[in-house]
């Protein structure tokens, strides 16, 4: 799923300060699971903002709403007729949701309330880890199901580099060396003999390097 993290409230206050009617809009998908932008976080943020502006002696309307998915036209349509009463929306969805909102409601200010961070999973409650960079041409078959593009700090295709120490990455003793994990797994799978094949130079044109990406599937259009 997409993992997001809360934005500092000071940053949100600064962006919405010029406005008087504001909607805090949550999303029931990934950001709910990673506890950054679901119904609960919408409530907490809205309360904190109300208290802040009240203390400032300003009368500002701050409403709350959480919809099923902000990256879906159907659910965003639910808001039509309602968003007109607001000058600005703080979306707690990922960057996709924020952009969908902004695209659909052309004259409405839409601000992000979270930082969209990565594609990952919950390790334990309160800890989320990155597992995929959506490079567009998956090599997990060659690397024992562990992604060096994402999990090696230098995305080394023929690792481990010379900085791997006791299974950890040179940049942080808390970060596993992806290539140590790959080698351990290849060993368990009895595939360590494949290690010596040189990984070819990667075609990054399916990555962000190739420009904005789009998939067109004629079979399902």
């Amino acid at each position, binding site marked *: 799923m997409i993992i997001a993290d809360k934005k500092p409230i000071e940053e949100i206050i600064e962006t919405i300060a010029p406005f008087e009617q504001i909607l805090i809009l949550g999303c029931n998908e990934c950001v709910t699971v990673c506890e950054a932008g679901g119904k609960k976080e919408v409530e907490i943020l809205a309360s904190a903002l109300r208290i802040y502006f009240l203390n400032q002696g300003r009368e500002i309307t701050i409403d709350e709403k959480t919809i099923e998915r902000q990256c879906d036209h159907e659910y965003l349509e639910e808001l039509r007729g309602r968003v007109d009463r607001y000058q600005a929306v703080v979306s707690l969805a990922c960057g996709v949701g924020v952009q969908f909102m902004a695209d659909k409601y052309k004259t409405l200010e839409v601000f992000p309330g979270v930082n969209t961070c990565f594609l990952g999973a919950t390790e334990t409650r309160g800890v989320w880890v990155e597992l995929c960079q959506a490079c567009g041409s998956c090599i997990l078959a060659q690397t024992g199901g562990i992604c060096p593009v994402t999990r090696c*700090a*230098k*995305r*080394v*295709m*023929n*690792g*481990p*580099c*010379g*900085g*791997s*120490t*006791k*299974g950890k990455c*040179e*940049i942080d003793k808390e970060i596993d*060396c992806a290539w*140590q994990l790959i*080698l351990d797994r290849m060993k368990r799978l009895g595939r360590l003999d494949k*290690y*010596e094949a*040189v*990984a*070819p*130079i990667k075609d*990054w044109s399916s990555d962000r390097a190739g420009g904005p990406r789009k998939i067109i599937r004629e079979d399902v259009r």
Partner: protein
Amino acid sequence: MKAATPSRLEKILSTGELAVTSECGPPRGSDPDVITRKADLIKDHVDAINITDNQTAVTRMCSLAACIRLKLMGLEPILQMVTRDRNRIGLQSDILGAASFDIHNILCLTGDHQSFGDCAAGQNVHDLDSIQLIQTVRHMRDEHQFLGGNEILRPPRMFVGAAANPFADPFEIRVPRLAKKIAAGVEFIQTQCIYNLDKFERWIQLAGEKGLLDSVHILAGVTPLKSAGMARYMKNRVPGMEVPEEVIKRMAGTPKEKQAEEGIKICVESIQRLKQVEGVRGFHVMAIEWEEKVPEIVEKAGLHPRPTVEED
């Protein structure tokens, strides 16, 4: 192995003579004298000089320009090139630029992560990794082609090197990784600084058992310790560096004013021992900001005078 390039380093290695290389770190400024002064200190005692490429991810004068300074002095540079800062366009372009100045040696590296340096907020590139950079140089040199397939007019003629670190983990993969570099086309290796000689000997022995030693020239890396503090720093702070407790004890057990001398002694003793090791074809003396000690080390290790080589 017969020399395939005009590289002086390759020629010396191909005669079976022990080679000696050293390195100069470029300055954090544009003063060319920093390079020429360092090079002057070591030029009569080494066969070729590495110029580091923004080592430890700290921004410095570029390796290529500093290599050109060495060429202008009539010296033999080894262009270090990391894949951290340039994509395949930049790398190939710099290789051609170096070749235009007849720089005949290249050392292909991944580079330290930018979080260690002065631009921790910067992007890293890593379009290729070090092994793929080896492939790239060999492709340009041998096939006279860019990665994109088009022909290179006056291709580079470079002797291709890489680093190897027998002390990084996991140890068991360090020989297979060397094999991978050889498969990619590497011709010489400069190793990480060796303080744990037993481990290094085990590594090179395993490389020998795998039949790798006839396909690559291995230059053993040595760095003289200036002080017990430096020994501890290297052990604790430098990624992938191993300094055994006995070395630290020996340095710490020496009075402070004699520690530098002791460090040189350890370095020379290491070279003497490693000279006897099968597969060691030379030495890479990395006297970090202590270049003036290189001549003394090389002389005491019995590696001076350096052989003369006929130019192409």
